[in-house]
């Protein structure tokens, strides 16, 4: 064979260029967005808009206010969220490693700031007002922490105990500040995310077991040592004992009403705006933490399973992306986001169906709340980014 000839052969050259170009085109990041993940996320957010509209329809009508008040705000947040997702996906996530410490420290500083200039809402100081807008730094802290830990772990040896110390050491500042607000819900989420990250990077099983054990002991200790107020304990434990005294004193009013709302939706639901529990405001906070009751009541089992299914798709895509990520940085981000979304889904929906205690954790994509929605979309953007740049060559 005359290879040089072949090399000079225009046909061959053309063919080679074609292969190269095809390969480059094939690996171009823009070609590898994950349409399934995007679609599922957007559909969840749209379901959220519908549920918020329905939840607020009757109260706003009776107050003589425009019925789309909340939906408009949430819709604006969704648009900003989609922009945030695009931005988060556009630049190569690997460059984020350089900026990771800045992001982490920045998010922690915002948490410090909120303690001084924050607005108090329902007993917690967790909001910062910025020219007519309010946002919750604790939502940003979730992203800050995941990126910070992922970057720190990226080229570290994870066999020893050092990795555990690092993951927990980075957890401590945001966790402490969030607990100070106090926002135990977000604090719990961060703890779970930290555990998930240690799991997926391969921290030794025995460390994980010890940590899990310590977590259980800590939880029991908090309850036993009466570090919490009685009503907090009642709220946390009443779900396990619906016939108990705490319930009789009203500690599980929310749960009772929530169960009735969801259960009464039955198979097909009562239809949009037809939920009596929803319309009569029996379920408090049913546009935020208890949004799932609106879906359960008005769209029934079908609607609830649809939401669960959409979440399952999102989680499946995130886990898949974690599995195909080109580096540990990307893998940790994708797995961390998956763990975070799964935990929030489980605790939030679990709370409304009475298998988890009532703690203030929003349902990602769906609950009313701009910061949460934008932050969630930004995280999806990061995961997309990991997916788009999964190829090792180039």
């Amino acid at each position: 064979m005359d290879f040089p000839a072949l090399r000079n052969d225009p046909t061959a050259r053309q063919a080679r260029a074609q292969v190269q170009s095809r390969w480059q085109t094939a690996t171009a990041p823009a070609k590898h967005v994950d349409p399934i993940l995007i679609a599922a996320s957007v559909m969840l957010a749209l379901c959220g808009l519908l549920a918020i509209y329905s939840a607020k329809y009757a109260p706003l009508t009776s107050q003589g206010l425009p019925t789309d008040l909340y939906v408009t705000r949430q819709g604006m947040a969704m648009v900003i969220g989609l922009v945030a997702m695009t931005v988060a996906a556009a630049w190569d996530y690997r460059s984020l490693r350089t900026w990771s410490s800045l992001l982490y420290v920045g998010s922690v500083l915002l948490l410090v700031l909120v303690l001084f200039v924050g607005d108090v809402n329902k007993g917690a100081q967790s909001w910062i007002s910025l020219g007519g807008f309010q946002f919750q730094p604790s939502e940003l802290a979730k992203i800050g922490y995941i990126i910070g830990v992922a970057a720190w772990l990226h080229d570290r040896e994870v066999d020893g105990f050092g990795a555990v110390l690092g993951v927990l050491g980075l957890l401590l500042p945001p966790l402490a500040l969030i607990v100070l607000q106090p926002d135990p819900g977000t604090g719990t989420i961060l703890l779970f995310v930290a555990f998930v990250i240690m799991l997926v990077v391969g921290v030794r099983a025995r460390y994980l077991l010890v940590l899990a054990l310590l977590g259980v002991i800590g939880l029991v200790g908090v309850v036993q040592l009466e570090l919490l107020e009685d009503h907090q304990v009642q709220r946390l434990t009443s779900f396990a004992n619906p016939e108990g005294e705490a319930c009789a004193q009203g500690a599980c009013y929310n749960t009772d009403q929530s169960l009735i709302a969801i259960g009464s939706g039955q198979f097909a639901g009562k239809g949009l705006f037809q939920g009596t529990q929803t319309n009569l405001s029996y379920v408090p906070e049913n546009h935020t933490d208890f949004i799932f009751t609106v879906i359960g009541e008005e769209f029934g089992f079908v609607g609830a399973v649809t939401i669960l299914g959409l979440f399952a798709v999102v989680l499946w895509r995130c886990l898949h992306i974690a599995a195909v990520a080109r580096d540990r940085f990307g893998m940790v981000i994708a797995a961390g986001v998956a763990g975070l979304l799964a935990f929030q889904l489980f605790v939030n929906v679990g709370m409304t169906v009475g298998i988890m205690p009532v703690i203030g954790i929003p349902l990602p994509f769906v609950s009313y709340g701009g910061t949460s929605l934008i932050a969630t979309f930004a995280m999806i953007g990061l995961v997309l980014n990991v997916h788009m740049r999964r190829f090792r060559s180039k």
Partner: protein
Amino acid sequence: MAASLDDAPQNPLRLTLLASVVLLFVLALLSRLWFLQILAGARFDELSQSQAVRLVTTEAPRGQILAAGGEPLVSNRAAPTVVVDRQVLLDGNGEPRSEGAERVLEDLAQLLGITVEDIFDRLSSVRYSPYSPVPVLEDVPSEVRFYIQEHREFFPGIDVIDLPVRTYPQENLAAHLLGYTNEISPEQLDDPDFVGYRQGEKVGRGGLEQSYEFDLQGIEGTNRLAVSARGTVLEVLSTIPPTPGDDLVTNIDLELQAAVEENLENGILASRSIVRRDGRNLESVAGSAVVLDPRNGAVLAMASWPTFDPSAFADGLTPEEFAAIFDTAVADEVPAINRAIQGAYPPGSVYKTVSGAAALEAGLITPGSTVPCPSSWQLGSITFNNWNQRSEGSMDLATALKRSCDTFFYELAYQQYVREESALDAGQQDVTELFAETAHGFGFGRELGIDLPAEQDGVIPSRDWKEDYWERTRANNCSLADQAAQTAAENPTPSAQYALQLYTELCQDGYRFRGGDAVNASIGQGDVLTTPLQVAASYAAVANGGTLFQPRVGDRIVAPDGTLVREIEPVALGQLPVSEAGLVEIQQGLKDVVMGDGGTARSAFSTFPLDEIPVAGKTGTAELGSQIPYAWFAAYAPADDPRYVVVVSVERGGGGSQTAAPIAARILQAAFGLDVDPFAAGDEILD
């Protein structure tokens, strides 16, 4: 390091593990939703049509207040009460939910004979928890109850239930001791003592209801109900029955209390027919009586007149009723006041036991030593007269008490005053003001801490008190002095001159505790103010050999089934500051007042079997400005083994022997089971 970049970054096992956890989460939620919406959906649907799980609290019966013999003074009865469920009939803004709901409320108003506005007034009250029905009318006739219960379809959300209401089986008896109940105040809700109390809950106010609130209050019960839209209960989800409050057993002797109240009233009314030497009738506008057990301070009876009907409070007072009981503008003598503990009066001569003890302690006299009792006593330009303006020669303390000689005590008080002044002038620190100190030891000038609210502490004048008082009244006196100066300059009448002199002095050196202050205080006049209860407690201490007990109405707390919860133990506040020999001398004097020749109370006890039941006592006739004097009598009996201390005080009742002693004598007759004399027109004033 580089290895991790080249190797696949994933740990497939761990990612699989995470995926399994996620799957588990989703499956757990899915199966729970399957259960809730598919398997149990129908039941929840029914509940949602009922639209609520409702918390209904059942009021706990409040503990009873019992007399010593177990007879109820305050009890409960079930009052049939119409209640309206706001959740069924009203929307979130408190407006009727529909035209139907509006019609139901109109029908109800018509049935009850009240207006729809009346109902809305009650419904809009924040007193009630949003999930418990609101009482709109108490004590409805049984026809109304049956009508509503028979026609439930016309009255959704409306029911007639029995609510406990305070009832007073002995009617007006001991009204001042009992107090009443009403809704907890916002201040109390913030008070840590009232933690666990709920808005709208009833708490004790005034009297024993307030003092023993935490014993009498029960714990309300809670029912968690699933209720249909029509107000019928579908299912009781859980029930905690109410825990009734404990009962208070008092020391009040029911029969004695009744006798005390009857004789106080009759004695006061009878005394009004007595004409004074100046031609005026005694006014006897109000009075009080206390009976203590001197052996332990137990309050056996306590009465204040005029009195009121406590049951008026149970159903809520009308404005007219309220004014008649509380308002000084409407009722001159404000029946709400418990004068036995809230009336602070000059005690007059009943206070001489204190001055006698002080003189003994000062060493100015000894038991048996004598001091002159002239017809008058001079201090500078001021003349202090003996009460009868007669000279009675020299006498010992016992005789001075028997004869109630004023000048005897003037002399002794002044001697002590001079002693203290010279000690102070000599720059001596911590000079004991013995007369005031002794009074404190006898329980005066301080709250005794009886188990009734709003006890007064009275006044015992001393140098510090005087200076303090001057500071407080100075601005006023000085401005009065300026006014008087102006008046005197324009129109120099003698009275204007006098006012100028008086207020100028009060303004400039009213801080000085003068000899006249000490002299006046020694016979319970001047600035001295005491409550009848303080007098009673001090006489109880004299009677029992010197132990000052805290008077207390409550004896023990018992559970509704009668078992003892706790005893309310007697509290000894201290020993009287007087030697045993001195106390015997005082006791002798008090016996002579009633039983000795020339004793000031002898005639009031002329029909009393003093041979069998010896009585000791002291009269008092206290001047207060130009008013008719305040009558006092303090007694204990049997004098050799005291079981009862009786103190009677009548505002503007004239002489102690005239008005108060006859009442006390009849109270003692009742206490010892003797026939009680009817009241006749009184004697002449014997202090």
